[in-house]
């Protein structure tokens, strides 16, 4: 244990890792603050959930509609004219006329506008979901990705399963829960794609650097002859591995903690944790986000963090294994980076008729780069229900084997 701590100290004492960490965090915060214009608009969802409950039921929707009517009456008093919708009012309004209203009145108008938007989306859920034909979309995707042969068969079989899940989801009314309007704000993509991807790359940079640094430290400082002839001997590598993993966990926790902490301070998610991730409001692009399981936004976040941690730890161990073989942290860094991109691109080298096309997608880089689409049946080529756990399982096995080989080689290696 003491050795592990002393090894960790080597990373902590190196100002680069600390410096990069602060720089990355500052950059993340900058990105968050820069795109926080609509943070106040999001709060309307919290109000809606407070007032009408998280679930969208005919009766609660009716209530909302009634309240909007009341607001429109108020608008009538304000403007002296009857509007069917606040949008009609805004359409005929120029900037100068709008500026004449007081701040309070302006807030009222904006709020009403938002309420109407949410109400109209909620009212058209059934209509919009009825239009979706998952099976047909499956065929369209095949054409789009130019998939044929056995691959097409596999795809359609999985798609059929998803079609069933999609129907179940509608049956359960998982989609009838309030969430931030996806088409307008794209919060899911923003958090789980932009922010998570950014954090993931930063964490990986830090972790790969610190792991390679630790694993090759004695060789690069030329203290290997002393260090590996001590009582602990070559088992020191095990301590170094433990230290690398501890550092990786600490780095991940710090980056995630600081960035997500600020993120959720800026964007108030407090009321939507329990909302299903398959909510109709979480419909951003052509197809709504629909998960294979009935999971909430909060669970999705935890699961994403879990996947990120596992992925980072596995990559740390792989980096360690490679470092032992290469014994040069500089080369290791580039080899890992190259390997990462190469694995990520693997599917594009595969024939579109073979199941290899999908198999090649079961890689750590693909998993980590696709956080926003994890656990989803609506995430294109990696929509398989078993994608996450199989990928993690297979890569855990690969990592352990790689580490085993690497350690065994090191045990017999002549240390010059």
């Amino acid at each position, binding site marked *: 244990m003491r050795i592990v701590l002393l090894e960790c100290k080597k990373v902590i004492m190196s100002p*680069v890792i600390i410096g990069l960490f602060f720089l990355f965090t500052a950059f993340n915060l900058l990105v968050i603050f820069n795109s926080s214009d609509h943070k106040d608009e999001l709060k309307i969802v919290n109000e809606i959930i407070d007032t009408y409950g998280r679930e969208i039921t005919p009766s609660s929707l009716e209530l909302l509609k009634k309240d909007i009517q009341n607001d429109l009456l108020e608008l009538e008093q304000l403007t002296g004219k009857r509007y069917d919708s606040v949008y009609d009012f805004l359409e005929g309004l120029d900037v100068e006329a709008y500026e004449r209203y007081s701040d309070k009145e302006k807030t009222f108008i904006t709020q009403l506008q938002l309420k109407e938007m949410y109400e109209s989306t909620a009212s058209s859920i059934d209509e919009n979901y009825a239009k979706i034909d998952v099976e047909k979309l499956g065929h369209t995707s095949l054409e789009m990705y130019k998939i044929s042969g056995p691959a097409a068969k596999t795809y359609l079989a999985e798609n059929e399963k998803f079609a069933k899940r999609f129907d179940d989801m509608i049956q359960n009314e998982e989609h009838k829960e309030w969430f931030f309007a996806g088409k307008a704000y794209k919060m899911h993509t923003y958090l789980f794609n932009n922010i998570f991807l950014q954090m993931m790359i930063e964490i990986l940079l830090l972790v790969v650097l610190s792991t390679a640094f630790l694993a090759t430290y004695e060789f690069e400082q030329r203290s290997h002859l002393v260090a590996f002839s001590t009582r602990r001997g070559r088992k020191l590598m095990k301590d170094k591995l433990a230290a690398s993993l501890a550092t990786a966990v600490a780095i991940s926790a710090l980056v995630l903690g600081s960035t997500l902490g600020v993120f959720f301070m800026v964007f108030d998610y407090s009321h939507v944790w329990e909302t299903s991730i398959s909510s109709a409001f979480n419909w951003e692009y052509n197809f709504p986000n629909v998960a294979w399981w009935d999971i909430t936004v909060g669970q999705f976040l935890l699961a994403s963090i879990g996947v990120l941690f596992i992925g980072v730890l596995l990559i740390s161990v792989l980096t360690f294994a490679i470092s032992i073989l290469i014994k040069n942290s500089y080369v290791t860094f580039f080899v890992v980076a190259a390997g990462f991109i190469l694995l990520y691109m693997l599917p594009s080298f595969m024939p579109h008729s073979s199941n290899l096309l999908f198999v090649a997608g079961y890689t750590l880089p693909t998993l980590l780069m696709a956080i926003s689409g994890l656990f989803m049946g609506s995430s294109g080529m990696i929509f398989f229900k078993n994608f996450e756990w199989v990928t993690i399982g297979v890569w855990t096995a690969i990592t352990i084997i790689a580490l085993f080989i690497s350690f065994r080689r090191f045990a017999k290696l002549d240390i010059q």
Partner: protein
Amino acid sequence: MRILWNEMKKILTWKSLLLLLIINCILYFFLIDFYIKHFPNGRPALDSYRIGIEMIEKYGTSMNDEEFQDFRKVYEARVEEADRYLQTEKVAVSEGIDTYAKFNSYDWSSASKEAGELRDRLFFEEGTDLFWELQERNRLIGFYDGKKMYPSDITPAQKQRYEELAKEGIFGTYPEVAIRNFQDYITNVAVAILFSVVAVISPMILEDRTRHVVPLQYTSKKGRNVLKTKLLASFLSTLLVITSLLVIYLSLYSLNDTSVYFNVRINSFIGNESWYNPTFLQYILFTIGGIYLVGIAFGLAAMGFSTIVPNTLTLLGVQIPFVAGFLIFALNRIITFPMNMWFPKWQMPVFYGLLLLSSMFFVWYVNRREKKMDITI
């Protein structure tokens, strides 16, 4: 001279060349390949590319109103062709889309099944270029008709430039596929070259120190001037790396066959209003110059860092923010759109200037520091 050669051999080892190869193979497939393999990228980009060539061959590198009338006539003739074609289609007649005008104004969002099938057949199945081409010609005419319009929320400088261009009769009316493709392509090439330079140049000077060669070098006849030789060797290696990669990537680019467009001035391409107005070829040369400059600046910085950092962790760690910062904040502004009017006019020269000056200053400082420094172990 012999020392210089030896230092260069230390940089361009077979190991670093292998690293170079790996980096470029991977980035080629990851970033660059697409813009060669998929140019022009589907329809109507292909039609756009073809019509552009036709325009240049027929009217030269700029069009006056008279020439444009001719262009419009070609369009109208093609429309008549389409009309005749549609009239022979039973479905078109029965659906009331027996002319191209009707075909165009038809409400496709609530199209009948037959009409939808007809459209799919015309566009995708029969392999006729006509309808795609018409679409593109129509778009080009649209741009020509609206050539004098410009956005309202622009700075006075931008407005002045618009007026200047209008006065000279320069409008964005030529298809932009070629220049957009070049901009995308060269941006990704720049990324690959930047990574290559940094990866190859970074380790050498540090390695000499970690291998404890420095005390020997600094006490030789050449003494501390050897650092200058190392810097020169790094510089020459940078140029060598950039040049050889550019040769490869530009030969690949020649596969895109855009030379017909080379004499068109960049402001004549649609949506490409710029502060300067070189021809496409001159613009390409300018961008290549820009890549040299960026490569040299980062090469110099890499040499500087290599001289002062204590270990490879720091060497990599320190350069990550600079490279990432460049990719995030500067790449777009000085490589993809160096002359574009969306950015202030001063920006490109200032960015290039800062990049080069700061890296040169850094190397100068490092060199001076080394002259006086105590060489401990």
